[in-house]
């Protein structure tokens, strides 16, 4: 299972408009193109997860994640905020890169944790945050994933 196969250009947004944590989460959720009710439920679930502790893992990266009945299969989205946003990250630094993961409560393939681990591994590669800031199109994001074998 490759991360590259779980993203599409439509689920990549290279300029997140919002500044607040809540609005950023909503903007990421919108990339999944769910109906309004599902978006509302998903937002609450992601918020509750954030209340347990920020998903900002440091070095400008956040991985908001949850399981939710509103998706049939594991869905991923990526959003970039070039000038960074306050996300209560572990290192206290602004977050530039947001990887959203939403999985159904039960999966046949049980991909959720391996995907979470792969994204954390990919994003913590020392030069990845800078490379992500340089990409200029969703396709370039997908190419970067491919190049890294992710």
């Amino acid at each position, binding site marked *: 299972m490759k991360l590259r196969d779980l993203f599409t250009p439509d689920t990549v947004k290279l300029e997140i408009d919002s500044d607040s944590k809540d609005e950023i989460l909503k903007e990421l959720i919108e990339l999944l193109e769910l109906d309004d009710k599902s978006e509302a*439920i998903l937002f*609450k679930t992601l918020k509750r997860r954030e209340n*347990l502790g920020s998903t900002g893992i440091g070095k400008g990266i956040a991985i908001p994640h949850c399981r939710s*009945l509103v998706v049939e299969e594991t869905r991923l989205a990526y959003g970039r905020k070039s000038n960074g946003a306050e996300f209560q990250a*572990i290192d206290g630094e602004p977050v530039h890169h947001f990887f959203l993961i939403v999985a159904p409560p039960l999966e046949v393939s049980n991909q959720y*944790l391996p995907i979470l681990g792969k994204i954390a591994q990919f994003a913590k590669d020392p030069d990845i945050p800078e490379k992500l800031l340089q990409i200029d199109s969703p396709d370039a994001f997908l190419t970067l994933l491919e190049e890294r074998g992710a």
Partner: protein
Amino acid sequence: MKPSSPTPPMHPQLMILLELQDLRAKYRELERDEASAAVEREVFNVDPDEALTGLGEAIEKLENSLSAPVRARYDRISPNRDRVVVPVLRGVCYGCFVSIPTATAGDQEVNQVLQGCESCGSFIYVVT
């Protein structure tokens, strides 16, 4: 593409049950799945015990917001099942894998009514 037609209404108690379901899933995962707890601890610096306490409180709060009849049914189902609400996909209940009658599963506004699977008794959420 995001659905262009207006979102079908959803029963307010079903929305609460869906939230509850998601929280219970997270609780279960932290409580029973060491790999999941390890990811939260090591990648996200979350203390699983503290998280379980927080989740437990949130679950209780939501449970208390269920109406009396829904709460009674929820209390009957929840001790024995991980999932109180189950999705219905392509007409099949994912709690017991029995086909749901078309009259129940086929209506676009089906989630406006709080329904249970006649076979397994779980609340159902029809994925349209």
